[in-house]
């Protein structure tokens, strides 16, 4: 049973699948099974799975010298997805299946000892890789499948199915359903000011800090924020689903257009938040790409961790550099943070007495956010609502109504930018460049003087003034007004980050 064959597999690197040629040579020599070509432990283990799966599926495991070479050999290969290509190459090399059926096909899948196939993380990345190579993809039948234009995706349930490999079943990806949000603002009674603030934030992509006693509804409000954002575009769907697929998370809600909402716990490590590990996995900020990152208990996060997400927030991607090269993950998200107002949490709570001293409160509030504070434009105080209002759940303004205004404001902002002849850059879109903000506001002399005096009273820094102006610009966009008026300015001032918070 001597012979050789080469089959196409792939391994993940970042969010990309890199094609790997799996070459198998069965020759005379001491019986053995070895894998060469920078295979990591998970790939080395596949020898045992392949051996067992082959026998269980009624194939013969050759008792000769078997060498598997994974090319290019300079690339570190990882993951159990190479089980299937190794097994298939072995079968083709020994003539147990027709060598023709492996042509122009990319195989990905993990084998069980009984010969069944298990799906692996990153099926979308593999699909895109297969399309690039213009082959069809063969994967486990249970994989999460995304419709990719111009790609034939074939499902395999168990290894024995390779006997009739010519007529493998084509799997049809389920049609993505329209976005239906489980969490709607309608369920939130009261909190009208908070809803307004989140609406502004959604319209202008502003970072929000919510402060309020425990149980006042910060998490409830934040988790409904994705329902205010416009549904994902096709391009965004693919980008976001790719990251989630690589991380092994479910992608169905994303394909239906829902923006991701990520809520890492405050004990999260730097690697967990920005990505890392070996093999490199996307972090929470990348999983929140095109969606919302919610940092609850912001003051409990480690300063070094927050410092780590600051730079990716500016560039919209995170580039992780390791000894064997760098990988970059996209990370463009909306930041929502929440914090208690004081160490005991009950400052401003009508039902509990706060037991903190003023210096404690000052120190606590000053520590909130740390390096992230200059990414936060809106400050929102969330108050516990009266029990009577809580019972009125289901009567609040619905997400749909709120979203319509957000969409209109975004459309208006796009029009205004074109009208002003501003570059359609991301920077201009998010109202970030200082000169651009001031120009786009068209403040009257009176209003400018009013802002100046308010800034003086509140001791606002230059950056704080810019952030207020940028929020005012968004509020004016919601009112479809070309100029920022006094009402817009005052509302923005009401949502300013209070002096003494985070500094």
């Amino acid at each position: 049973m001597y012979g050789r064959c080469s089959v196409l597999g792939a391994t993940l690197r970042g969010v990309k699948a890199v094609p790997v040629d799996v070459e198998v040579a069965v020759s005379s020599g001491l019986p053995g099974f070895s894998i060469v070509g920078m295979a990591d432990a998970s790939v080395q283990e596949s020898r045992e799975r392949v051996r067992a799966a082959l026998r269980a599926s009624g194939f013969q495991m050759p008792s000769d010298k078997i060498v598997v070479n994974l090319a290019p050999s300079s690339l570190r290969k990882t993951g159990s997805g190479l089980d299937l290509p190794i097994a298939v190459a072995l079968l083709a090399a020994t003539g147990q299946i027709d060598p023709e059926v492996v042509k122009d096909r990319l195989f990905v899948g993990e084998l069980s000892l009984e010969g069944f196939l298990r799906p692996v993380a990153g099926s979308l990345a593999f699909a895109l890789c297969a399309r690039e190579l213009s082959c069809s993809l063969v994967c486990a039948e249970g994989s999460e499948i995304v419709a990719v234009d111009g790609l034939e995706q074939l499902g395999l349930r168990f290894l024995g199915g390779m006997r009739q490999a010519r007529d493998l079943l084509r799997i049809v990806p389920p049609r993505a359903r329209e976005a239906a949000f489980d969490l709607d603002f309608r369920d939130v009674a009261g909190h009208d000011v908070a809803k307004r603030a989140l609406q502004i934030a959604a319209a202008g992509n502003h970072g929000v800090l919510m402060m309020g006693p425990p149980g006042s509804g910060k998490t409830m409000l934040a988790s409904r924020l994705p329902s205010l954002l416009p549904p994902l575009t096709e391009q965004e769907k693919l980008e976001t689903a790719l990251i989630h697929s690589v991380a092994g998370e479910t992608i169905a809600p994303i394909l239906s257009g829902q923006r991701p909402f990520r809520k890492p716990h405050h004990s999260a490590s730097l690697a967990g938040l920005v990505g890392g590990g070996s093999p490199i996995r996307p972090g929470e900020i990348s999983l929140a790409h095109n969606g919302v990152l919610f940092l609850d208990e912001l003051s409990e996060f480690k300063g070094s961790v927050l410092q780590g997400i600051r730079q990716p927030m500016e560039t919209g991607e995170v580039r992780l550099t390791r000894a064997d090269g760098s990988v970059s993950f996209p990370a463009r998200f909306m930041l929502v943070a929440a914090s208690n107002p004081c160490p005991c949490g009950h400052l401003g709570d009508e039902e509990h007495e706060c037991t903190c001293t003023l210096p404690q409160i000052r120190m606590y509030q000053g520590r909130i956010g740390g390096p992230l504070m200059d990414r936060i434009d809106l400050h929102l105080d969330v108050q516990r609502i009266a029990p009577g209002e809580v019972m009125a759940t289901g009567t609040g303004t619905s997400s749909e109504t709120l979203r319509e205004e957000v969409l209109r404001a975004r459309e208006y902002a796009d029009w205004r930018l074109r009208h002003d002849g501003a570059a359609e850059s991301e920077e201009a879109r998010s109202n970030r460049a200082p000169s651009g903000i001031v120009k786009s506001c068209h403040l009257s002399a009176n209003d400018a003087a009013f802002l100046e005096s308010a800034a003086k009273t509140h001791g606002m820094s230059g950056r704080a003034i810019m952030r207020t102006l940028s929020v005012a610009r968004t509020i004016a966009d919601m009112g479809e007004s070309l100029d920022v008026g006094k009402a817009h300015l005052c509302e923005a001032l009401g949502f300013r980050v209070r002096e003494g918070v985070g500094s």
Partner: protein
Amino acid sequence: MTAREGEVLRGPRSVIKRGDAAFPPLLERVASPPKELFVIGCPDVLFRPALAVVGARKATPYGKGCARRFARLASLRGICIVSGGARGCDAEAHRAALEAGGPTVAFLGGGCDRVYPPENIALFQRIVESGGAVASEREWGFPPVPYAFRARNRLIAGISQATLIVEAGLPSGTFSTADEALAVGAEVLAVPGSITSASSRGANRLIAQGATPIVDDESFLDALLGVYGCLRQETADAGCALGAGESQALQGRRPEGAHGGPALSARDGGAAPEPLLAALSAEPIGMERLCALAETFAPAGEDAWSWLSVRIAELEATGLVRRYPDGKLGPAVDPLV
């Protein structure tokens, strides 16, 4: 902010034994009078007519503003301001007296070399340097233990002819000072607050029990007249040192643009204050509730929410209203700063 390790107050030190001529006679009337008084600064100020100004440590801007306002008014009339040197209202009263150039005395719970709270050491040093005194019945190095603070309240109340409670919860140390004042037969004055505000419950209760309510500058000056016999006309003399706007305010007229305390301007008798300002003056209110109030307050035909944002921004800019650390908006009673 905090005192460096080993930092002590500088200034002349004296130990006054009970029975000495230098022992303030008013302290003879308190329950178990101290055997000795340990004083840093000028011991003579202990003989001056004194007003105790006490209030909550965790004071609201309202309480602190009142402490500052009335301590200053009394200080301008030559009355010595006595307090406990604690955070919040106490510290504000001392500061106001220092700014008015009057003497002030801080009674500490622990010994004078173990000042508490430590961040106030600079304030105590200023008190000593400006002719006031820092006093205690404990040995110099006595630690600031809780029971000592309760005990020193009787000295604060005892040495003063009258005790002004600017803000007190229920129960509280401040409230116990009022009890001590009643025990020695001193006058008790109290500044009322909103009945819904927990931080004013003690002061309001005192008024119900017969304390003299201090509802504006005028009633305070009347009380001073009753207790110390300072004539109202002295205002004018003391007022020479004040700005023009301020002496006008003291005479009951409200100058344009002056940062008069909204809650205390009832005597203006002029146009009624606008309802939003009146509501905010009564107690701090959160945005959600203000939003509901705006529906009724906003002029017809105007969008309530934008009307509210504009009004709040304007009130904040003029310093009438302030945003508290818990996000609520409330009165910035800070008229004489």
